């Protein structure tokens, strides 16, 4: 048991400030028990220091290959998206922006009630409305009739052209066969044996 004013181990391990170290040193000079305790501590420390450090079996080194190393902006980008909270924050921010843009650019809803009011305020009676509807229907039917007539006319023209083309082709074919017939008849006449040859 030490009677030193401060812990002798603190003194040994240099954990005491200057004035306290001096106090311990003065005490140890006059106290054989504490001096012996301090000697034993020093001996223990010296014994521990008998163990040396080992050399490393091999050295450690890192290599930098720019081919495999990401660009700085790419590292920042990867670092940003690699963080869950940041990703969540970015998603929330994007959603907020989308809602804001949608709210600012969306057209106002059509005033349905207003249209009804305009019709009501136009002062037209049901007869007038019926007349206009009938007129619109008549105009639409006239358009349809005109289109149908045009369509029939185009079909008739096409059929007529096709018929003429067929007649022309048939006439040419007839002409072709007649010419062949004349050629065959001429050839046959040339090849027919004369009456005196048989004998």
């Amino acid at each position: 048991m030490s009677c030193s004013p401060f812990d002798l181990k603190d003194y040994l391990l240099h954990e005491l400030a200057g004035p306290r170290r001096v106090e311990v040193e003065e005490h140890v000079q006059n106290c054989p028990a504490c001096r012996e305790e301090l000697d034993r501590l020093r001996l223990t420390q010296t014994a521990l220091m008998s163990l040396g450090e080992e050399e490393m079996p091999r050295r450690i080194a890192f290599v930098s290959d720019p081919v495999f190393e990401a660009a700085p902006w790419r590292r920042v980008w990867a670092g940003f998206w690699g963080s869950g909270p940041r990703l969540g924050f970015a998603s929330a921010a994007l959603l907020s922006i989308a809602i804001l843009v949608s709210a600012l650019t969306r057209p106002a809803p059509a005033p349905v009630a207003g249209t009804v009011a305009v019709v009501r305020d136009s002062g037209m009676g049901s007869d007038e409305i019926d007349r206009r509807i009938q007129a619109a229907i008549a105009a639409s039917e006239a358009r349809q009739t005109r289109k149908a007539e045009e369509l029939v006319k185009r079909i008739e023209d096409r059929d007529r052209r096709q018929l003429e083309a067929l007649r022309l082709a048939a006439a040419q074919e007839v002409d072709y066969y007649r010419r062949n017939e004349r050629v065959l008849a001429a050839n046959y006449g040339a090849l027919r044996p004369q009456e005196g040859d048989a004998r």
Partner: protein
Amino acid sequence: MIFRAVEDADLIQQAARGAVEAYNLLVSRWEKRVYNYLLRITGNREDALDLTQDVFLKAYQNLRKLDDPGRFAPWLYRIAHNEAYSMFRKRRPETDVDELEPESVEAGIAFGGSSVFPLELSLAVAGALERLSPDQREAVVLKIYQGFKFEEMAEILSCPVSTVKSRLYSAFDLLKAELAPIRTRGVS
């Protein structure tokens, strides 16, 4: 010493900006110390070397998070401590961390490298260290062999300074009893 500390701080700042050569120089200054620290607490050369590589890789990846380059050493040893205990947990997940013992110390590890002191003394010291608890042994290694202050040790071990002192001084009492026994005075 101060000049060296400034140089380390410069290297740390350069390495944090991606200068691998600066980091390699920093590694060359610290690798032997970190390796020996890990060797003393794991008792296995191969584990110590693997862990040392992991420690420096992790340190490089997290160097930007180091606010004060002057605190590099305790920060680095904190990583080393965590890596070692992480390895212990993986190998024996059912064991309480406080009860973890390093694997059997390889022959020659604890007293390798010294030629000044007699071999018997080195053997005695190695045996005495082996009989300490892992916490006591690590406190001795950090204080005696690595020269950290109590505050730095508390940072590395993530515990109060009082706990650090308690572990170290109880270890010192045990070591003192073995390595510096009380001299018996002969009666004439």
